[in-house]
């Protein structure tokens, strides 16, 4: 996954409406190293420079007040500026003032950079949203009128033909067409949209490539899918998520505590005979309040959404992303998520009196004309297991090919007086008996065994000089995607239960569930069953995530805490879910959960780091302030900082620079490995808790060493 993300970052937005996102590559999940799976792409230092003007623009107090911590820094910067202006010869006052302003700007920079990444995507989307002229059908449905796309109302019927841009979101009510949806999905291969069924939804801004369709508009202009996408990637629609609000409350209360600690310090200092200048007190305050996390908090949230967008997933709310981290039950559709889409031949089982080689030969022959994936897999198995070279239809001269149809449910070939057939048990038995042959006694037992093991049996029969007879059975089975078992084991370690949803009978479902290693399965699942399962899990306090695409999935998608609708699905499904996967790849649900977790971890890690940092700052600033009054306090200067001024300045500079230093981490998210909560906590506490204690001691000392070289400071 990391690879395709890197690619996007390296690719500048081009002039034409080319997709900004590389088409999703479904890398077999098991092959990816667990590490860095949800990495967020490279961070380019140039982005910092580019976003600088935006950062300055964000100094508007009306904007800043939304982050209480940074608002205090802004007020502090203004205060020190006034003081520095009153005493322009005081270099120390100016130095502090400059660094306080830088602290504020750096905080805005973090947010601006995070937003900047979304802006590029939004620009490309806007190009797709060119003003279209819609061909609206009049009330009587007989004639057309041209109206601007912006004047369409819900329920209007519009006509689109090859070359037209679809003017708004809607459902196809008449006709079939191939549509180029690359403007939204980045996938260049056209998709089929047809009236009725689960593939009727079309999105405004996409282009009809062939044929004619009539679309019933389902959204108001300005609220279309593409509008929502633009808002989302730009962060315009961004609202603080519940956890972010809670964290902000805690940070605000810590800010108040430190504000009190600093404000009340002056009377104590006066009594001690060490009255402090307002500049020093402001510097102390800014160093103590949790500026690091305060500065990066919104960037972390934006970047989290962005990481989803990079994976072609649109979260309709930040709340859903957070909920994804909390999910404890995953409902996964079997087909496409757990197993490859199709069954594959796994084994040839001959009846008594036939050899496996004989059966393989007949099976291969009968499947040459079968272009279904199952048919292809039989040819492949014959080649791989029995060394039978694939014969081409042309090689066999006088052959008459019988293709597989849904009616006959058989395929085969008549060649050299031999008739070979392969197909569903019932059809083949009927064919053999129709040819006057006899079905081997053990054929029934063999097919039963395969059915019970969760497989699908196909019979192979032949009619030649010896008459019509069954040769054996082909064992078709669902093939579990590679690496799924490991993936589910990881999920289990993270405390997430996986439930496989399938329309198969319980027997088949159980066999696949065991093979894939899911915790539970729901067989012969109807939408109602799915809904009931979700409600049952939720009643136990669990959060449930699922994917779905059909209209009958819509209620369940709405009920689930995280409902990921496939972009290929119906508009009802897309409306009901709180995320849309543009790639329509259900396996992504697992990644979505990981991104949600990573978002929360990043927040927690930087909060811990930010608070732990304060210890060192006290050891720098308190002796600097009071060693004059109480010389004993100089023993607290364990870093051996050069002078009181250099100590305070170093702490302020460290405080500002650490924000910039952590911007990449905030944007990329902390490294995430699926593991148990215990190990994760141990690791992150060590890294960000202990690290947060120690790092500033080193950082402040280094800065002090540097600035004490400046004459007059050291």
């Amino acid at each position, binding site marked *: 996954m990391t690879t395709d993300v890197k690619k996007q970052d390296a690719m500048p937005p081009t002039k034409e409406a080319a997709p900004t996102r590389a088409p999703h590559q479904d890398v077999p999940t098991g092959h990816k190293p667990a590490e860095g799976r949800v990495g967020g792409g490279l961070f380019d230092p140039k982005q910092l420079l580019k976003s600088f003007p935006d950062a300055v623009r964000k100094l508007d107090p009306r904007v800043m007040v939304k982050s209480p911590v940074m608002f205090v820094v802004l007020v502090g910067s203004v205060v020190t500026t006034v003081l520095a202006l009153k005493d322009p010869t005081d270099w120390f006052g100016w130095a502090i003032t400059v660094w306080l302003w830088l602290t504020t700007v750096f905080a805005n920079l973090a947010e601006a950079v995070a937003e900047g990444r979304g802006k590029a995507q939004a620009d490309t989307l806007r190009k797709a949203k060119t003003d279209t002229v819609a061909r609206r059908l009049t009330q009587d449905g007989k004639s057309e009128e041209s109206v601007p796309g912006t004047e369409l109302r819900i329920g209007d019927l519009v006509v689109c033909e090859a070359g037209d841009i679809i003017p708004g979101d809607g459902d196809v009510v008449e006709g079939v067409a191939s549509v180029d949806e690359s403007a939204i999905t980045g996938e260049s291969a056209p998709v089929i949209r047809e009236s009725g069924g689960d593939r009727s939804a079309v999105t405004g801004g996409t282009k009809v490539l062939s044929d004619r369709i009539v679309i019933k508009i389902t959204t108001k202009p300005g609220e279309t899918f593409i509008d929502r996408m633009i808002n989302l990637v730009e962060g315009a629609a961004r609202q603080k998520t519940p*956890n972010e609000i*809670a*964290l902000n*409350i*805690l940070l*605000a*209360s810590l800010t108040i*505590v*430190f504000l*009190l*600690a*600093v*404000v*009340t*310090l*002056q*009377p*104590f*200092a*006066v*009594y*001690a005979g060490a009255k402090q200048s307002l500049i020093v007190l402001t510097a*102390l305050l800014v160093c*103590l309040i949790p500026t690091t996390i305060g500065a990066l908090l919104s960037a972390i949230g934006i970047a989290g959404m962005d990481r989803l967008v990079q994976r072609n997933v649109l979260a309709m709310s930040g709340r859903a992303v*957070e909920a994804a*981290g909390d999910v*404890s039950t995953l409902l996964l559709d079997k087909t496409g998520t757990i197993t490859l889409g199709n069954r594959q031949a796994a084994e040839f089982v001959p009846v008594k009196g036939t050899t496996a080689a004989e059966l393989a030969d007949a099976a291969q022959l009968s499947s040459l004309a079968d272009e279904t994936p199952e048919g292809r897999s039989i040819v492949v198995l014959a080649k791989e297991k029995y060394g039978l070279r694939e014969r081409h239809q042309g090689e066999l001269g006088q052959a008459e090919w019988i293709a597989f149809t849904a009616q006959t449910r058989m395929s085969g070939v008549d060649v050299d007086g031999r008739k070979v057939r392969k197909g569903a048990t019932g059809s083949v038995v009927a064919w053999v008996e129709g040819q006057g042959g006899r079905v081997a006694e053990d054929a029934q037992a063999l097919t039963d065994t395969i059915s019970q093991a969760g497989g699908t049996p196909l019979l192979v029969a032949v009619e030649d000089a010896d008459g019509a007879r069954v040769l054996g059975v082909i064992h078709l089975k669902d093939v579990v995607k590679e690496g799924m078992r490991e993936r589910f084991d990881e999920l289990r*370690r*993270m*405390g*997430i239960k996986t439930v496989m949803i399938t329309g198969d009978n319980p027997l088949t479902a159980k066999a696949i569930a065991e093979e894939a290693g899911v915790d539970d399965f729901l067989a012969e699942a109807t939408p109602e069953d799915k809904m009931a399962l979700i409600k049952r899990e939720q009643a*136990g*306090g669990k959060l449930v995530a699922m994917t779905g695409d059909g209209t009958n999935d819509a209620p369940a998608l709405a009920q689930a805490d995280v409902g990921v609708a496939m972009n290929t699905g119906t508009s009802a499904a897309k409306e009901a879910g709180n995320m849309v996967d543009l790639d329509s790849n259900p396996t992504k649900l697992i990644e979505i959960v990981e991104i*949600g977790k*990573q978002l*929360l*971890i990043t927040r*927690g*890690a930087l*909060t*811990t780091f930010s*608070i732990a940092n*304060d*210890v060192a700052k*006290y050891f720098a600033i308190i002796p600097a302030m*009071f060693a004059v*009054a*109480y010389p*004993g*306090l100089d023993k*607290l200067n364990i870093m051996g900082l050069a002078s009181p001024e250099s100590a305070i300045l170093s702490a302020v500079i460290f405080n500002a620079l650490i924000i910039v230093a952590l911007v990449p981490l905030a944007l990329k998210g902390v490294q*995430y490995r699926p593991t*148990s*909560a*215990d190990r*994760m*906590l*141990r690791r992150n*506490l060590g890294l960000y*808790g202990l690290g947060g204690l120690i790092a500033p001691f080193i950082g402040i000392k280094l800065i002090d060493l540097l600035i004490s070289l400046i004459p007059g400071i050291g």
Partner: protein
Amino acid sequence: MSPQTAGVLQLLALIGALALAYRPLGDYMARVYSSEKHYKPEKWIYRAIGANPGTEMRWPAYLRGVLAFSAVSVLFLYALQRLQGVLPGSLGFQSIDPDQAFNTAASFVANTNWQSYYGEQAMGHVVQTGGLAVQNFVSAAVGMAVAVALVRGFARSRTGELGNFWADLVRGTVRILLPMAVIGALVLVACGAIQNFAGIHEVGQFTGGSQQWNGGAVASQEVIKELGTNGGGYFNANSAHPFENPTPFSNLFEIFLILVIPFSLTRTFGRMVGNLRQGYAILATMAVIWIGFTALMMWTEFAGHGPAFEAAGGAMEGKETRFGIGASAIFSVATTLTSTGAVNSFHSSYTGFGGGIQLLGMQLGEIAPGGVGSGLYGMLIMAVIAVFIAGLMVGRTPEYLGKKIGTREIKFAACYILITPALVLCFTAAAMALPTPANSMTNTGAHGFSEILYAYTSGANNNGSAFAGLNADTQWFNSTIGIAMLLGRFLPMVFVLALAGSLAEQKPVPETAGTLRTDKPLYTGLLVGTIMIITGLTYFPALALGPLAEGLAS
């Protein structure tokens, strides 16, 4: 045996005794607060106050009960002191001045027992026994009730109901504090503490001159003074007075009384939330801080440098020779880490660092193990904060005991941790900035500052011990410390109960492998770290200018 060894052995004996009492007392308290039964005497009380002990209360109703009861108590105690001059059995003492009467009423109702008066020279039998001693029981029972309400908040789900305040108050008093106090008083009397209603005796001294000795119901008040983490002594010298605390054994026994309920409440907590391991984790957190502080205190008091220290074998100034440095250190840490505030030595005379340890102990919010009830709820609030900060690092919305710590919960917890620092720092700053309060200081420099910082720290955290050396019987100190005590006691309770209500409404989140385990040593370490860092950061500048400046000077 060296004094150091004696100190360590006493500490070990204390730990042993606490460990023995832990299970039975903790389980007993859980049964008391979960029982459906009402005893006869309890029913009489309910009838007398017109309360129905069977009705469940939501948090606002519970809070109204707490506040109404406490307000009536303050008024009653105030009136009793103001009328002392005309009441019989007052040993001829005058009525108390309004500002001091307010201060004392607030102090005893807030479970603080800050005393700006000399017990033996101001309060007669009626006020001491009918007013102050009664509050020693019920103010402690109020603290326990609020703690139990919070525990119910964690234990219950999909309800806003937190139990019945009146039932919790009466049961805490009648079934827990009273029986324990009776046994404890007998032990103290056996040790030699006095228990009578005698008047004032004039006693001749060896060196000539005379001395006044008061009689009084001392043992009964002494036992609840410790057991209810109150701390208000019958005599001004408090537990350093031989009538209150006659022998080294009674001394150790009093420390045991101070600590036994707060520590055992963690078991009650574990029982009531149905997970004993969670109780042990909280116990471990408390124990680590308590033992750490005690060790530090012993170290700094034994290690004092200079000729006087070396002659005495440590910092003996202000400590009773009956107890020595070890037992004094253990007592002073126990009293400042709980909301007790009883003293058997003069805190002002401790080394600079020793004074710092006492101050920090109170500033932690008195949660290791803390006051009866208040220690548990204070610690649980910190546990919520720690879970919130660190819990995010496991990639889930933070949860504690199956309850989500969301916006509402963190709002209440954040308000809780704001209150005492705000009171301590603002009042201390005001006292330092205004011209008159500083006249009360009897020391200059860092030590003088420590006196005032200590006074407000003690008041706002409901400790009640005094650093000594500060003349606190002035209108300014009586009023401001009185306000600090009331706000420091009852504002946090508002947020604790609001939090409890919010938690009780939630449905529980099942525990999975992805849940942060709060019953493991790692979490205990995290909790200790959070407590130390958050409090340390709040008070570091103030401590630097007081005890640290003093301690680092030598």
